[in-house]
């Protein structure tokens, strides 16, 4: 086993074990320690839909440059149970340093033995195996024991006995790690970057939640569903601090109707759900369209159809987001690809929904929500969001016809007017009508608002690589960092990457870029190239190739890099 060459500038660590075994704790301790040591760190997890048992894994990348995407490579592979070996086998190569308890893996060739159970028992029980493993890995990576101890202090500082035992366990692991590193002649060349230690470290759910608060979210009624629940729980934890009304709804139908009730009464509401729950919200989404209510929906994708793979990732619900809800009405769909984008799209979703009096869907996925990395800062605006509501006059009409289709939005209890909303087709005052002329005027009024969503309020695209490209890679949502990294590795002078955080409606600028491509390649984490078809519908341009993946896992950097190398040598 020759591990040395892979320890340049970047190390990829994979932890495998069963649910409930403590992988999450190891991830927390290691990522905090790595970041505190001044290393850029990225972590993501894949897990089975069960509370105990099965095989789960966490992948951690550390580097002296920012890392933000999933890589298949495993330099270090820590196996916490027997089954983890078979589960992670496809990622283990001759260069991988495989670490495991020799009692569990007595016959595994090349194993770097770590007597986890024995050392944990010495400290006081198997619960301490996590800190033993952390100490061991930290030593292999050349991290200071003091930095690791500081992390343990932060995590267990409120319980003296637990802290002492974890420190002891980490020390035992660290000692073993140091001697293993000497034996294997390992040395880690990743350089610490001082500013990293002071940066933020968070995951996608937290970024969406923070962005929602920045957007003025003060109401969320939702029903728990993986992978959307993290956002709901994040806002619940912030309820008192930011004055947010949080309610666990009895079902998703209730959730979205609560959201619409709240906007009507002056709140700024969001729902957080996944595909199955969003399907139940279809009628409510249409109600938002018909009543011209702002609404923000966080749709966290997971693979379907039906219950599908509840804990895994996919970009399979773009069509659902685009077509959900009967009848014709405008909407916007935002799909963030990084933590900064997740914050900004969530914030912007409220601004867009409020300004256009239309539903806005934030389309994320399990991979984005469950991935963490360090970021320098989140794009916090200086001023709080504007409430676009008016104090009504006595003759107020909610649906007064205007040039751009927007009627000033009043709320009950603020002003002298009555605010009358009806899901039936209605006249300017909100009363039921079946007159053709009024019907046509109201349809036209509603549809006009799409121009606002396409215009100055749109979330801008980003182009990576040469502006005079021939080949254009197109991605949306969580695939962004992997495509960016693969493109940077290949650095083909004729290939650029167009990232679209606003997938619908497409802006004029995006359409222009798409039409300028000689060869158009759309990359999506789904089986039917949903965005490619949306592009074709909107621009008439059919993609020349679709790079798709739909096994429940995100694209790895290596996968995209290999495909791109093949592509550029065609």
């Amino acid at each position: 086993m020759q591990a040395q060459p892979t320890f340049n500038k970047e190390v990829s660590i994979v932890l495998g074990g069963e649910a409930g075994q403590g992988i999450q704790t190891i991830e927390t301790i290691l990522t905090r320690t790595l970041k505190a040591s001044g290393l850029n760190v990225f972590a993501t997890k894949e897990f089975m839909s069960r509370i105990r048992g099965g095989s789960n894994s966490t992948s951690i990348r550390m580097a002296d440059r920012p890392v933000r995407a999933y890589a298949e490579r495993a330099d270090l592979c820590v196996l916490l149970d027997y089954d983890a070996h078979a589960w992670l086998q496809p990622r283990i190569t001759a260069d991988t340093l495989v670490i495991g308890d020799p009692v569990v893996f007595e016959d595994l060739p090349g194993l770097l033995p770590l007597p986890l159970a024995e050392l944990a028992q010495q400290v006081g029980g198997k619960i301490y195996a996590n800190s033993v493993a952390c100490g061991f890995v930290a030593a292999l990576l050349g991290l200071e024991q003091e930095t690791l101890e500081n992390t343990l202090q932060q995590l267990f500082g409120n319980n003296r006995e637990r802290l002492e035992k974890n420190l002891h366990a980490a020390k035992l692991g660290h000692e073993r790690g140091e001697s293993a590193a000497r034996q294997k002649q390992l040395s880690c060349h990743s350089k610490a970057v001082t500013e990293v230690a002071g940066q933020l470290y968070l995951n996608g759910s937290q970024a969406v939640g923070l962005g929602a608060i920045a957007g003025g979210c003060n109401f969320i009624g939702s029903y728990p569903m993986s992978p959307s629940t993290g956002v709901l729980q994040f806002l619940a934890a912030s309820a008192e601090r930011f004055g947010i009304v949080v309610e666990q709804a009895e079902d998703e139908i209730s959730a979205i109707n609560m959201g619409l009730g709240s906007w009507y009464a002056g709140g700024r509401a969001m729902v957080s759900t996944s595909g199955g729950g969003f399907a139940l919200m279809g009628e409510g989404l249409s109600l938002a369209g018909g009543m011209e209510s702002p609404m923000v929906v966080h749709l966290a994708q997971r693979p379907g159809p039906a219950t599908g793979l509840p804990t895994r990732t996919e970009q399979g619900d773009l069509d659902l987001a685009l077509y959900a809800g009967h009848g014709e009405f405008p909407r916007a769909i935002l799909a963030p690809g990084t933590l900064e984008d997740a914050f900004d799209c969530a914030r912007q979703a409220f601004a867009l929904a409020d300004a256009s009096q239309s539903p806005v869907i934030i389309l994320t996925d399990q991979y984005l929500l469950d991935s963490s990395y360090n970021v320098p800062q989140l794009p916090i605006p200086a001023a709080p969001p504007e409430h676009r509501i008016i104090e009504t006059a006595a003759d107020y009409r909610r649906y007064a016809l205007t040039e751009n289709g927007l009627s000033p939005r009043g709320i009950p209890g603020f002003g002298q007017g009555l605010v009358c909303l009806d899901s039936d087709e209605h006249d300017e005052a909100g009363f039921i009508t079946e007159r053709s002329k009024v019907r046509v005027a109201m349809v036209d009024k509603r549809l006009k608002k799409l121009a606002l969503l396409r215009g100055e309020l749109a979330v801008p695209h980003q182009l990576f690589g040469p502006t005079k490209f021939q080949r254009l890679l197109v991605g949306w949502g969580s695939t962004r960092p992997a495509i960016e990294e693969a493109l940077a590795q290949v650095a083909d002078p004729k290939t650029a990457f167009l990232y679209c955080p606003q997938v619908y409606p497409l802006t004029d600028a995006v359409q222009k870029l798409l039409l300028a491509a000689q060869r158009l390649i759309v990359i999506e984490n789904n089986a039917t190239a949903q965005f490619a078809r949306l592009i074709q519908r909107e621009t008439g341009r059919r993609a020349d190739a679709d790079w798709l993946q739909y096994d429940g896992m995100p694209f790895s950097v290596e996968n995209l890099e290999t495909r791109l190398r093949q592509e550029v040598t065609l």
Partner: protein
Amino acid sequence: MNANPFIREGCDIAWCPGCGNYAILKLMSETLAALKLDPQQTVLVSGIGQAAKIPQYLQSHFFNGLHGRALPAATAIKASNPGLTVIAESGDGDMYGEGGNHFIHCIRRNPNLTNIVHNNMVYGLTKGQASPTSQRGFETPLQPAGVILEPFNPLAVAISLDASFVARAFIGHKEQTLDILQQAIRHRGYALVDLLQPCVTFNKLNTYQWFEAHTHYLDSDHDPGDRTQAFARAIEEDPLRLGIFYRKEKPVFEEQLEGYKTDKRPLYQRQVDMSELGKLIGEFT
């Protein structure tokens, strides 16, 4: 009576001549006026159906949303601006059928709102099919051999969930119904009024005469604080008892929310504290 601020003049009413809803419309405007409520602070929330059109004919704010979904919207309206008087009013199919799950959980939440259900034991807008409260054997175009399901008993369900106010009224008795409606709206917490009414077009079984013959007020010694007694009266099928079955003071949903713990203002008056958000973000270092 033109001084009643809740009467909306010049409405093109979509109900059949002789419909019980006209009586309810009158009862509602009189109740709201008698309570001296302000139309500017009153919101009627309804679903879809003939009963659900009532907000269109009253001078107040209204949110006439989806079939079955009035209660979630009403709960959120109250929770977003607790100063508003919120009344969720719709028919038996809307509240007990399509919205049955919301009915159950709204009672569990106990928001301070009034839930008025026009119960005529038949579907009107879709023309004569069975409703959740239709009686066994009731023949309809969709149930030509008669209804074979047990009728839904909203009062028994509400009392079993310990609803904070449970009443039944019959629109044929104006004075008693006005009193029940007023008490329900004044009640602090969720209040259910199951309001019996005939449907002159589609229900030839449960007519005015039928309701007169098959309803009877709760005895004068009925104790609305006694849940067991209330339940016993609620499961009586003939006669159907009228009056206030059950009443209990309970913590109100919106008053217990974390979102109102330190900030009592309605949501529309709030601004995000950006420096506090900066601090929260800083906690992720």
